[in-house]
């Protein structure tokens, strides 16, 4: 998250800050647990008197902290895919992270586009995975495919050979998988040893995941067999380049910044900071209760709006009295009435050095259609 926040803050401060104020990123550790996240959130509110906005937290910690931030009238950019926010009613909660159930549909669409018809769905029994499966099955079937095997895995077991054998007995031509890093790594390693890999469509996202899975099956196999479906980063160019440069330039604050270049979440965090900053300028206030309602105004598309690709462009356009649409490093942003913005997905192939190359996009319209 620092890899998104720090580059954004650096650029904003270089461009003069927000309404004369310099921004800073501070960290609060939620310790991966909703019960620990509540004191973390309230401690943050108590100790940071100049708090202007929150990035995160993720998953069920968001459920526990959203009411606190909302009651305190503090704008938060949630980092959760949980379905509990699909029809979010907290005015101060915003989400660029796509909902987990939408991701399932995106995986199904990509699988059908690549011509697979007999799919195995193997998901860990943890949070995101359980939300993905129903939409994946529904969409894949609707698009004319068959789910031949649908298994739920207990996490972090000693091996998954029997589960692999069960799956292979149904002769799938593609494997949809999502679980925690250890589980996915062991399952795929077992598959490789027993039969050889088959095409895999996963959601492998971060460095830890790549290390675990890539380490278990090898970089070459990762390249040959594994396609990962992730939120649209978009080869939109300008914004992404600005972000990448700012990230690499922040080497003294972000350890090994280049490792985050292909991480899908960092540009989203970068965008979130820019959105907060631009809406403050549009509202002429750094108080969340004032600027909060300006967030869609600086992000959503609209006729006559000027497209801006960085904070600096945005503040200049606003100063010139223009209506702006901030195009993010993570793609186009379009908040709906539930403060959710989902702009589609993208498929990636891993290269031998662990970086990723885009294979194509799955637009949000197609997902909505397959989901209906």
């Amino acid at each position, binding site marked *: 998250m620092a890899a998104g926040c720090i580059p954004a803050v650096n650029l904003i401060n270089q461009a003069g800050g927000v309404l004369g104020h310099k921004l800073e990123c501070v*960290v609060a550790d939620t310790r991966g647990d909703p019960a620990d996240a509540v004191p973390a959130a309230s401690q943050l509110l108590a100790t940071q008197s100049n708090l202007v906005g929150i990035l995160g937290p993720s998953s069920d910690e968001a459920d*526990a902290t959203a009411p606190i931030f909302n009651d305190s009238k503090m704008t938060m950019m949630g980092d959760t895919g949980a379905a509990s926010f699909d029809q979010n009613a907290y005015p101060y909660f915003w989400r660029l992270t796509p909902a987990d159930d939408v991701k399932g549909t995106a995986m199904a669409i990509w699988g059908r586009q690549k011509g697979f018809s007999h799919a195995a769905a193997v998901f860990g*029994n943890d949070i995101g995975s359980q939300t993905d499966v129903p939409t994946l099955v529904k969409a894949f079937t609707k698009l004319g495919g068959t789910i031949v095997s649908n298994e739920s895995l207990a996490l972090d077991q000693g091996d998954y050979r029997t589960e692999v054998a069960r799956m292979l007995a149904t002769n799938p031509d593609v494997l949809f998988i999502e679980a925690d890093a250890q589980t996915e790594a062991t399952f795929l390693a077992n598959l490789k040893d027993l039969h050889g890999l088959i095409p895999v469509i996963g959601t492998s996202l971060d460095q830890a995941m790549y290390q675990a899975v890539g380490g278990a099956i090898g970089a070459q196999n990762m390249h040959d067999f594994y396609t990962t479906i992730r939120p649209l980063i978009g080869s939109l160019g300008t914004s992404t380049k600005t972000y990448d440069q700012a990230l690499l330039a922040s080497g003294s604050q972000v350890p090994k910044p280049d490792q985050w270049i292909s991480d899908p979440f960092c540009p989203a965090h970068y965008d979130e900071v820019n959105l907060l900053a631009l809406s403050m300028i549009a509202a002429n206030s750094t108080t969340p209760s004032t600027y909060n309602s300006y967030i869609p105004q600086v992000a959503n598309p609209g006729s006559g709006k000027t497209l801006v690709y960085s904070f600096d462009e945005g503040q200049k356009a606003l100063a010139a009295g223009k209506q702006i649409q901030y195009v993010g490093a993570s793609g186009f942003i379009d908040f709906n009435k539930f403060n959710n913005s989902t702009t589609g997905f993208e498929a990636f192939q891993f290269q031998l050095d662990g970086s990723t190359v885009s294979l194509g996009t799955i637009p949000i319209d197609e997902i909505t259609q397959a989901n209906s």
Partner: protein
Amino acid sequence: MSIAWQFYISSILVYLGVDVMACWGLNLQFGVTGIMNFAYIVFQAAGAYTAAILTLGPSSRSLFQHYIGGANLPFPIPIIAAGAVGALLSLVVGTFTLRRLRVDYQAMVMLIVSLIAINVATNQVDLVNGSAGLSLVPKPLSQVLNLDLVNYQWFYVALTAVVCVIVFLFVHQVTRSPLGRTLRAIRDNEHSAAALGKNVTRFRLLAFVLGGAIAGVSGAILVEFIGTWAPGSWTYAETFVLFTAIIVGGTGNNLGVAVGALLVPVVFLEATRFLPPIGYPGLIDALQWVAVGLLALLFLWRWPRGVIPERRRRFRKPAPG
């Protein structure tokens, strides 16, 4: 004090109350009776789920979460029900695990019970919404009282304090009564207690059930406050913190245990939030667990009876009967 500080401090006070209650319940099982319940968090969870389900209303009304037997019962019925479910689950688990098993077997069986419970809660999605857990649990009496944010926080602190007092009176009564003496006798020498004609298994089960009821209530107080509960974090480490609190405070002594609950989960773990971040994310967390482990070892070595030791009881005459 600023609103935000009031908010933080009131939250911590609620957590303190929950931890103190949980430690009293565990102390009744472990400190007083000698049962190594490494599954304690499961009974807390059972209470939390019960309270959440009985507050959330019917499952069919929710778009994103599914659970069994939802209802919309008024305060304080969900909390009382949570205690009842904690007790009932303890009765079932205790009946199967407390018979004739050595203390180390019991410890292992409890680890297994907690693994089974986590597996069932995550895999049976229609039971308590699987690993996503339950969320958006309404706060008790918030509609009726119509307080602003900070005042509601203080109301909840008061509510927690009242429940703490009730639980304290209860555990105090139990530990000083003849029942408490019997339980300590079983802890100190099971065979002598049995030789005196005490039904060791039945007394153990009784302590286990009472402790389980308190665990359930503490879980309910917590979930009604934070509004969400998920099985993701029921590791043995969470229970170990409570054990450490009991050891540090004074095994078997209710007052000592309350001090332990203040020192370990609240002061010790909360203080690290004020440290500046060092190293990679998660490093402080890892070092903090190392520190909790060292703290437990230090006390077991240097002050095994804790900050406020259990009083040694002397009797002039042998008790009649």
